[in-house]
């Protein structure tokens, strides 16, 4: 059984995605892009695949948990999400999938250009993070990932800092996979 929760992210906040997604799919204008949540057999390694991706405004990302032995989340770097630093465009609404069990999925449609960093709640300290570049961003996230934590927010764990692909690499290659 494939379970799914959908969500639209844009300038005006969060809306239910089903009507818009259905219309876009029918027109064939914005194919849905899949990011897999994965892990190895003993749970020692976990990752998003791809870890970095560039999309057009209006495209939908669908995260699906393909790890049979773990639960994962897709959670935006945003103060509303467990006091994390703001690493998505200021006018964009944050998202949090909550825990997804194996084969569950969650979708977000991105309408606002910019750079979006996100993480997996139980695995941020193990470096399970990802980056989405939407359109032609005017600049990188407000601060580099290695910058000191913004006031009132949690510092980004070292393993996560090391894992982020660079914006330049995403812009050049379009898709960046974990090495």
């Amino acid at each position, binding site marked *: 059984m494939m379970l799914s929760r959908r969500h639209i992210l844009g300038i005006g906040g969060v809306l239910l995605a089903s009507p818009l997604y259905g219309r876009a799919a029918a027109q064939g204008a914005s194919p849905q892009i899949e990011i897999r949540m994965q*892990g190895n*057999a*003993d*749970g*020692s*390694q*976990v990752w998003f695949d791809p870890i970095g991706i560039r999309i057009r405004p209006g495209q939908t990302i669908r995260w699906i948990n393909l790890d*049979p*032995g*773990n*639960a994962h989340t897709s959670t935006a770097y945003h103060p509303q999400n467990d006091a994390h630093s703001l690493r998505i465009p200021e006018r964009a609404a944050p998202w949090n999938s*909550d*825990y997804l*069990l*194996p084969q569950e999925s969650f979708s977000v449609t991105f309408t606002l250009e910019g750079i979006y960093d996100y993480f997996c*709640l*139980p*695995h941020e*300290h*193990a470096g*399970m993070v990802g980056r989405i570049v939407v359109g032609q961003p005017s600049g990188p996230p407000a601060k580099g990932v290695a910058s000191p934590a913004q006031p009132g927010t949690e510092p980004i764990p070292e393993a996560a800092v090391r894992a982020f692909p660079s914006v330049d690499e995403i812009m050049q290659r379009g898709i960046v996979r974990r090495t």
Partner: protein
Amino acid sequence: MFLRFVAAAAIAAFTMPALAADQVEKAPPTGSYKKVSELVKLPDFLPGLGQLYVDPKTLPAGPFLAYDRDGRLVSTVYMLPIEDLANKDKRFDNLAAPGGKVDHVDVYYNAGHPGVEKPHAHVVLWHVSKTDEARVAAK
């Protein structure tokens, strides 16, 4: 240093007599144990470990009792956060070991999961043979 800590924890668990009189051979165990998948959002059966039960008061270390698909106890698992193992002032003493005879021990890194959200070590006291570990393998 990390390996010394883990080895000490494993040896302590090996040699310690069972402290509780709970029935643990068959799932569900008696006493204060709760099914992990009902405490946090995790699959009910974890490939490589099995179906887990834990007394919530003992989190995060455990012991977690792991059962095969027929409800037979296969291992006792301790989950020890890496940052605690690297902390010279942190100890894990007197961890209960109610599962009885231990056949062999595995120690390995785990990236985390709901309930123990930071990287940690799994110390697995197997009560079955290496061959019988297949009872909790992925289908």
